[in-house]
């Protein structure tokens, strides 16, 4: 029975193995098949009860992350087939690209099902190893510099979370989530200080990977320079997977000080994104700041718990679909306009109508506009902030969210609805993929009762 829970991992693992063999020329078909296999098996797991063993801890949250990761995986694989054809100076051959992509997803799928905080750290660090070279696929100076910054900043940040793991282990004498969840109430008072430091350092460390202030500096570089399908995977899945580790720490150490610390970092992250979104020159970089904005508000929701936690999960899922769609669309813009700059991309709605309008809606979705799932999530979190911290902090949070909304949508409007500086072009059918993802971001709102049910009852009933 346990075997079924591992199917998504086995599919992506099989994809990695088959793609590394250079004599097999079907790496694209193999990747599509295994990604669909991972998606269908993840959906099937939604109907199964929760699982706790020595190695695995699969609850409602894990199941949601499995489905979300697999769904973006399918879209990223299909979009990659179209996108990598247009990369001029590829760092490696197509089969190696798909090998890395499948392995990257494999490590992310692993992270969300493990029943050991130490192994979760190992898996999160493994995502760095498997994803680094994917950023430098478009082999140029700035891309390689961005890759290096990613590796060194994220690895150094994760060392901080390793201290957290050691502190937590020294307090609880176990790293098993199933055990940790039960142990906190009975913890001696003398251990409270060290668990507090464990929680705080864990948030800073895993926050580095999630793009949380102040260790976010790698994120705009890596998202800005990676190939679009990889930017999509980074923003839509990798950042939430790091937030997942933070959520596990918050569950294990429900200390008020740790929660306030997480809230503060979340607030500072959205403040940063709000100010930075106004002066962006490059569109992919601008959407990277939008990811910091979304992860910041999601972290606030996780720190508050209760219905704000549900709000965070809604944001994470809707953002995953909407942001992956947006990055796919920016990839299509880059291919057709051959420029990274906002000022050099004009009138997309006339040159590439489907891409232009989808980008407009994608931008609205990632900035929390109704009726997308991000709006409902933000609303739940704002109500929780009001109930916990009062009106001033709620207004401040709302102000930062509004600033990011205006900054990002204004720049997108300039690109989409201005006078075109290119001839009208023929749309590629691949634009269907981001459109489907946008519709899924919209569907999150209507699926919210179902998501609530999976989160708290463990299975789709």
């Amino acid at each position, binding site marked *: 029975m346990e075997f079924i829970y591992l199917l998504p991992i086995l599919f992506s693992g099989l994809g990695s193995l088959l793609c590394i063999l250079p004599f097999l020329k079907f790496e694209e078909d193999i990747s599509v098949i295994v990604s669909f296999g991972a998606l269908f098996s993840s959906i099937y797991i939604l109907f199964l009860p929760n699982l706790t063993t020595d190695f695995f801890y699969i609850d409602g949250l894990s199941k949601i992350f499995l489905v979300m990761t697999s769904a973006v995986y399918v879209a990223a694989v299909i979009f990659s087939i179209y996108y990598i054809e247009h990369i001029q100076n590829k760092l490696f051959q197509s089969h190696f690209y798909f090998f890395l992509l499948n392995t990257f997803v494999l490590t992310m799928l692993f992270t969300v099902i493990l029943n050991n905080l130490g192994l979760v*750290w190992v898996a999160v660090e493994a995502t760095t190893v498997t994803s680094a070279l994917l950023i430098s696929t478009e082999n140029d100076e700035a891309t390689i510099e961005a890759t*290096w910054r990613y590796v060194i900043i994220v690895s150094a940040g994760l060392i901080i979370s*390793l201290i957290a793991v050691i502190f937590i*282990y020294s307090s609880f004498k176990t790293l098993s989530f199933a055990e940790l969840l039960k142990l906190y109430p009975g913890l001696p008072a003398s251990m409270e200080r060290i668990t507090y430091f464990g929680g705080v350092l864990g948030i800073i460390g895993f926050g580095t990977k999630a793009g949380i202030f102040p260790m976010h500096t790698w994120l705009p570089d890596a998202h800005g320079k990676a190939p679009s399908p990889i930017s999509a995977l980074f923003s839509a899945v990798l950042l939430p997977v790091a937030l997942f580790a933070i959520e596990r720490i918050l569950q294990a150490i429900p200390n008020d000080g740790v929660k306030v610390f997480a809230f503060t970092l979340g607030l500072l992250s959205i403040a940063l994104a709000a100010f930075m979104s106004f002066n962006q020159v490059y569109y992919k970089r601008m959407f990277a700041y939008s990811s910091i904005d979304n992860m910041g508000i999601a972290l606030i929701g996780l720190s508050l718990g209760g219905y704000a936690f549900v709000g965070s999960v809604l944001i994470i899922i809707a953002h995953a679909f909407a942001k992956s769609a947006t990055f796919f669309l920016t990839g299509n813009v880059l291919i057709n306009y051959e420029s990274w700059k906002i000022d050099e991309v004009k009138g997309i709605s006339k040159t590439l109508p489907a891409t232009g309008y989808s980008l407009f809606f994608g931008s609205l979705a990632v900035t929390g506009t109704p009726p997308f799932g991000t709006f409902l999530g933000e609303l739940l979190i704002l109500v929780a902030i009001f109930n916990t911290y009062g009106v001033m902090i709620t207004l401040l949070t709302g102000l930062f969210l509004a600033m990011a909304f205006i900054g990002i949508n204004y720049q997108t409007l300039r690109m989409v609805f201005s006078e075109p500086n290119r001839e009208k072009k023929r749309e590629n059918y691949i634009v269907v993929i981001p459109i489907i993802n946008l519709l899924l971001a919209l569907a999150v709102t209507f699926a919210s009762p179902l998501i609530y049910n999976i989160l708290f009852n463990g299975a789709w009933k």
Partner: protein
Amino acid sequence: MNHLDNAFLLVGFLEIALVMFMQWEVYITNIIKTFSISSYLIAILFLIVGFINKESYILVLAALTALTRGWLIPFYLKRILRKDKWRARETSPLVGISSSILISLLIAVVGYLLYSLTLSNYIKSNLGSIPITLMLQGMFLIISRSSTFTQLIGYLIMENAMYMFGYIFPELPFIVEAGIVLDLLGVVMISGAIIRLREDVIKNGSEEYTELKG
């Protein structure tokens, strides 16, 4: 304070002295060699701990430390360096040598203060300030240098500091420790690949990229 704590203190102070030497050194081969020595010292410490406490598991960790951090990683880095001789001396550190000396001394003081303010109630001796100081020194090496090699060594020093934490706190389960070593090797291999690429395209350390600003 027992003999083991004395050994830890001795190795700890030597580690700090070595990392300070790295802060002031501009020849990358020397930095790599110094890192190798510092890793062997940690391996010796674990060897002593393992023998005195009669724990075979610590002995395995000591062997792994000597093999991966002491020999394999420095060997791999030196091999990459040999291919690009002009990289052997850091020409443009972001913080000058004299400032580095001053700052690295200050970091030792800050490490001690940080420890006194945070963990001193929990750990009954002064041992805890050593890994904290080492970790801050590693971070400073990453921030103050533009050479990819030195930055990577900075990261590895942070990793070594983690190992020293392992002496004060209970050792993590073996499967986690083994995973950490595997990840470390993975990071070094990937970094090696990126260093090669970076050297092919960037000849003068970190440059200003307008695409990576803001």
